[in-house]
């Protein structure tokens, strides 16, 4: 059994543009016509957000601008209970803490990065430490259940309350990773 959610249009709210709606296969006995948002571009994600759907496109540019130059195929982060409701060429990153997608800042970015690249999460935290709210980081890490990767890259240095789960990488290894991945300005 799994839980699923639905995207429902509020009364008075305009529907998503036609080109973003794809009809979902209709199961037997299911009366309503269901549409799945089709997300093909960053603009589509913005349209979703304008319709109050908490979706975030995690792009290499976004991460690079925060001090970690990296290339990867973008991830479409969406609430876990809605992750099966999207049709997209982007890779889907199901996120437990849907609230983290409302207005993501550094703490949210670090937490999302922990899901697929903990070393990147560490470097973004290091290079944006003055904007990183320890309470917010603690809350996001706990909500998302990523204490283990957070511990491996020692995010307790930024939010000491994060419970330690598993063993961390050595400080020398982390220093070496930081040295080998200079921030954008130095790398350019």
């Amino acid at each position, binding site marked *: 059994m799994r839980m699923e959610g639905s995207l429902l249009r509020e009364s008075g709210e305009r529907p998503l543009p036609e080109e973003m709606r794809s009809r979902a296969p209709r199961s037997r006995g299911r009366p309503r016509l269901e549409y799945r948002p089709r997300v093909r571009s960053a603009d589509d994600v913005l349209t979703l957000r304008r319709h109050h759907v908490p979706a975030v496109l995690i792009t290499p540019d976004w991460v690079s601008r925060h001090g970690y130059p*990296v290339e*990867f195929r973008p991830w479409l982060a969406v609430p876990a209970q809605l992750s099966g409701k999207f049709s997209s060429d982007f890779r889907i990153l199901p996120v437990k803490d849907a609230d983290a997608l409302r207005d993501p800042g550094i703490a949210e970015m670090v937490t999302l990065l922990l899901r697929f690249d903990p070393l990147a999460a560490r470097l973004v935290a290091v290079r944006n430490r003055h904007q990183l709210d320890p309470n917010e980081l603690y809350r996001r890490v706990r909500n998302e259940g990523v204490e283990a990767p957070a511990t491996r890259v020692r995010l307790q240095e930024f939010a000491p309350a994060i419970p330690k789960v598993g063993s961390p990488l050595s400080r020398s290894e982390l220093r070496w990773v930081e040295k080998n991945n200079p921030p954008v300005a130095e790398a350019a």
Partner: protein
Amino acid sequence: MIDPEVQAADTILRREGIRYVVVGGQAIAQRAATTTRDVDVMVATSDYGATVARLKAEPGLAFDWDDGKLCRFRFLALGGVPLDVINSTVFSGNRTGKEFFDFLASEGSQSVDGILYATPTLVWYTRLLTKRWRAYAEKIVTNVIDGVPVHQLDGVEEVAHRFGTDNDIGPRVAYVREELRRPEVAALLRPP
């Protein structure tokens, strides 16, 4: 399209007649995301000393340091991006550095635009044999999430068996497999 840093390395190494294989992040970049700009090239043990000596005379490179296993140069025209020359003996286990290099060049690499790049299997093998293997294990997990087939890990164990490094590699590959089994990672590896 060849990365400009790799192109710069190839131009110099080719001019000097040095046989090499691109390893490290630039090799992984053929298959998956990477942060790397620096270029790691492996040369046969027998060529290592001569390679270092010739590259020291290259006007486009600045010599940084050499410990006999790895020698670092920097590309002057590319803002000091490192060029690391790696001695194949470091990874050859109970066989010779030449044997490891020959295996890398003939079976553990593929040619792209005339340049030999190590396969992910060989990059992962070399990374897991270093003292910073745990940090590299994180990168391997990220590589797999990014689409490098996980079966390349089987190849790592086969290479280790061939060169007698099973005792080091075995537990490290097991660690990576354990990481890949974590629910939050496994969820990202399932096809949509």
